[in-house]
């Protein structure tokens, strides 16, 4: 009988073991900031060994929904100001923060030979973007509003899927399932982009959701960190 007890003991240690001593902080962040935040998390936890920073990433609209449904977030980094405006609880503090750009990314090697906006009229092209309710989708619609309405309609009718967050959009482009996709410039990686399309600037918003010293420290540390430029973000003054 002894090994069963050992197994249960081991399971408990594995499941509940390491979290007891540390204070945990919840950062809800737009999926486009995921890699940068992974690096930030390591640095922040080195500076604050007593804190376990947990990053939850996804579409800002979904994160906002989760917060409204009772998920505990100490700091919320949203891809636009809208999602912060629509939170059911007003944040303790908020500030416009990282800037980015909505671009039309092209599949690896650009097999569809898209060189200019005119090429987007080609029949049979395959596009993908985020759904309207997701910030990346709203920015994509902004982009489409700035081109000739006929072209905009043609692109819309060639849309193959409306994804639930911008990283799902990028996955479809990385797999080569589509020819072009609406994503953030920082999401491109090695992928090419359309250079003569409209310029749509995007603005992230940082919100402090609870008023306690640790959350405040995170809120400030995020803004003081210098790694954002390395990931292509522009820190707005």
């Amino acid at each position: 009988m002894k090994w069963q007890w050992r197994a249960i003991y081991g399971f408990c240690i594995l499941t509940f073991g390491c979290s007891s001593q540390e204070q945990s902080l919840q950062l809800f962040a737009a999926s486009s900031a995921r890699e940068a935040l992974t690096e930030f998390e390591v640095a922040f936890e080195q500076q604050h060994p007593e804190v376990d920073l947990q990053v939850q990433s996804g579409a800002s609209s979904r994160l906002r929904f989760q917060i409204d449904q009772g998920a505990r977030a100490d700091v919320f980094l949203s891809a636009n100001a809208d999602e912060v405006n629509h939170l059911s609880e007003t944040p303790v503090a908020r500030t416009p923060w990282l800037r980015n750009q909505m671009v039309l990314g092209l599949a690896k090697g650009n097999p569809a030979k898209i060189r200019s906006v005119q090429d987007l009229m080609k029949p049979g092209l395959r596009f993908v973007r985020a759904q309207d309710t997701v910030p990346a989708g709203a920015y994509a619609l902004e982009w489409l509003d700035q081109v000739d309405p006929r072209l905009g309609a043609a692109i819309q009718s060639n849309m193959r899927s409306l994804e639930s967050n911008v990283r799902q959009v990028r996955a479809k482009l990385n797999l080569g399932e589509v020819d072009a996709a609406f994503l953030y410039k920082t999401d491109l990686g090695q992928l090419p982009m359309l250079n003569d399309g409209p310029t749509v600037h995007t603005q992230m918003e940082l919100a402090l959701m609870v008023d306690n010293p640790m959350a405040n420290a995170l809120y400030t540390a995020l803004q003081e960190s210098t790694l954002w430029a390395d990931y292509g973000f522009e820190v707005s003054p």
Partner: protein
Amino acid sequence: MNRSPRWIWPLALLPLLLFGIPLLALSVEAFKSGELGSAITSPLVQEALRVSLLTTTLALIVTVVLGTPLAWILARKDFPGKALVNTLVDLPLVLPPAVAGVALLMAFGRNSVLGGFFLEDGLAFSTTAVVLAQVFVAAPFYIRSATTGFQGVNIELEQVAASLGASKIRVFREITLPLARPALVAGSVMCWTRALGEFGATIMFAGSLPGKTQTMPLAIYAAMESNWVEALALSMLLILTSVLVLLGIRKVKHAA
């Protein structure tokens, strides 16, 4: 002899509460909103309903046409590798749907060998992809049930019919099929219901485009963060369907 302690009753009630309360809460919330009627007629819900009905019907037809011969062989024939075939048929039942989605994308995507064979552009992100995903995850329910049904048919009845001069086709149509019917119907209903609820494989392999690949579960997911009442309305429709299906199956089983 059949004495059980009294405290077993409240204990048995707990799982029922777990199943019942969320469904009740959802229904109350849906009716409380007062917009259920307008949500059901909204374009998102209507299109999802249409896509779901179309794709699940096609998935069921494909499953019955392709699954019946396989079920019959599994019930009646022995051949080398039968255990392997049985495992393969059971695999989608236990495989996480997300895995099915990735696998289908690798097999039928634009840059895959098979996808390029069928269509230059692959099959992914189309209504066909929705049907394919549904067949992948739901067909085993039909095949399993049909196999059991065919196994239950008394072979002597078939032999008598054959000895009286009935052709093989006629024996199958007039003896085997009617006797296996309850199992075939129950299997079809289970298969259709599973296809209707399909989410993971569909969203990964077929994407989510309203009016084309956005089925009801995908529409619920999309509506959660925008129009909450539409998500509730779709959920209510799916609950209603599930209840009707269960009642239907019970009736078929009783008739058998």
